[in-house]
């Protein structure tokens, strides 16, 4: 019969889940104020927006749905907050999932009210586009012809003051995509080579390791690494919002993981020792 130490090798998964649940809830209720270092990736996004030409428009592309809103929503929020703080014009565009345009628009409307941003004058929603490649190719040539009307009032883009002087992707200051998918390949392949606008990406944490290749090559100027990236951005903006709070449960969950890995290995070691003893004795 195995002793309690050996049982650490195979703790029932339900116990693991229960402990994790408790830790996440406690972490959300009692945030631990710890300093968060800002990495070069988040700083890259920040500097791209900070140095954007005010005469140009910023494209905020979204490709996420309710499932990944835990990470993608704070990322979209901090980018929009920065744009509004800098009083930069921006356009929302959505791909992949029709939910994407609704969720991003709700965020933009909420922040626009707080920052006195006027629809049509300071920002615009180009809406959801099913054909990613066709749309991106079109943006390179002629934005008005490709998008035609906005998604809220369904009026021609050329009627809006926010679109004055904006013809194609060369009139874009920054391209930022918040995404739960690998859509960066389309942007890099079809758009980024045709403009000087820096391209920034805000993926979910799972996807982030894949993007270091493009950060390293300079094709991407910055990246927000999941919710941690959003928290770093909040720090750069000097905000202590929900994202900064949410970093506590993330940290505690990983600490739990370290503890469990340690216990699992100790249990394995104990079992091996017992087996050796058994073989010798």
């Amino acid at each position: 019969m195995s002793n309690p130490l050996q049982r650490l090798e195979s703790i029932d998964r339900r116990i693991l889940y229960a402990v994790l649940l408790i830790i996440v809830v406690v972490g959300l209720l009692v945030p631990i104020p710890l300093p968060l270092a800002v990495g070069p990736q988040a700083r890259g996004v920040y500097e791209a927006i900070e140095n954007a030409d005010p005469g140009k428009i910023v494209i905020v592309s979204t490709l996420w749905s309710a499932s990944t809103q835990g990470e993608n929503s704070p990322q979209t929020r901090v980018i929009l907050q920065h744009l509004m703080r800098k009083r930069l014009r921006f356009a929302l565009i959505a791909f992949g999932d029709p939910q994407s345009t609704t969720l991003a628009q709700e965020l933009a409307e909420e922040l626009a009210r707080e920052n006195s941003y006027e629809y049509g004058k300071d920002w615009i929603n180009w809406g959801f586009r099913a054909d990613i490649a066709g749309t991106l190719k079109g943006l390179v040539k002629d934005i008005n012809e490709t998008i035609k009307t906005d998604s809220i009032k369904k009026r021609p883009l050329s009627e809006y003051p926010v679109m004055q002087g904006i013809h194609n992707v060369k009139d874009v200051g920054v391209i930022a995509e918040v995404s739960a998918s690998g859509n960066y390949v389309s942007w890099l392949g079809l758009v980024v080579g045709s403009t000087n606008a820096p391209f920034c990406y805000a993926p979910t944490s799972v996807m982030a390791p894949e993007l270091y290749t493009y950060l390293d090559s300079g094709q991407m100027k910055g990246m927000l690494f999941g919710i941690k990236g959003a928290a770093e951005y909040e720090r750069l903006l000097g905000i202590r919002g929900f994202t900064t709070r949410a970093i506590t449960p993330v940290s505690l969950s990983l600490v739990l993981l370290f503890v469990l890995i340690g216990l699992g290995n100790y249990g394995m070691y104990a079992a091996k020792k017992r087996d050796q003893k058994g073989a010798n004795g």
Partner: protein
Amino acid sequence: MNLQRLLGSAFPKASGSWIWISILLAALGCVVVFFALQALPGRARKFLIAAVTFLAGLFYAAEFFLPVDPKTDENFLTFAVPTVGNVINVLAAFTLGLGVFSLVRIHGTKVVKLREGWENSVVLLLGIVVMAVAGLEFEDTRFYRSLFRDVLNSFDAAMFATLAFFIISAAYRAFRVKSAEATLLMFAALIVMLGQIPIGQYLTHWLPEKGSYASLFRLDNISNWLLITVNAPAIRAIGFGLGIGGLAIAMRLWLSLERGAFFEAKADN
């Protein structure tokens, strides 16, 4: 552009009742093609499938490789890209109908024969009907928004959130010091994870962020180094392999060289 004009005059834009006549003629044409294909002997059908596959692939290859007019960035095939895209979308829409039919057939049979779990099938079928009716007829109502935001969004978010639990149990099982490689992998993973969170960063926060050799030992810097210098080249290498593998299989499918594959097996029947 001549090809565009030629096609434009051969198939002028239909309007009024001509739209319906065109649709009817297209549907009839499809029926004729369907029966003609059924009547063809295996060898001829195989040749036809290979020819259509080749021509469809050739369109995109030719559009990509043929020189373009520098002013418009288009060649004589570019105008047709959206149309071909629409054709593909229409085909996909038809297959969605087949997919829904499969779902309804399997679950409908389950309900009718009261097989085990038929109650779940009733909920599924009701869900399909209610969501479809709400989306088609009541899109601007609170009812639809509630279904969309309160039900669908919550379910989606809940499923994604379960990943946190699964990651814990998977990592707990996987990170065991069983060999030198596994140990190396485990420590690399621990450093990367520690470098991503404030608690980990706090351990070495007293070291300078940059500008000195001591900064190299900060956990966030080591984590970044691992991600950029170790992880990125590995992903790039896998990416090269995948890209070439994808190109090879695409070539085989395009030229119908995929022996023993389903299309050929079907044609031989």
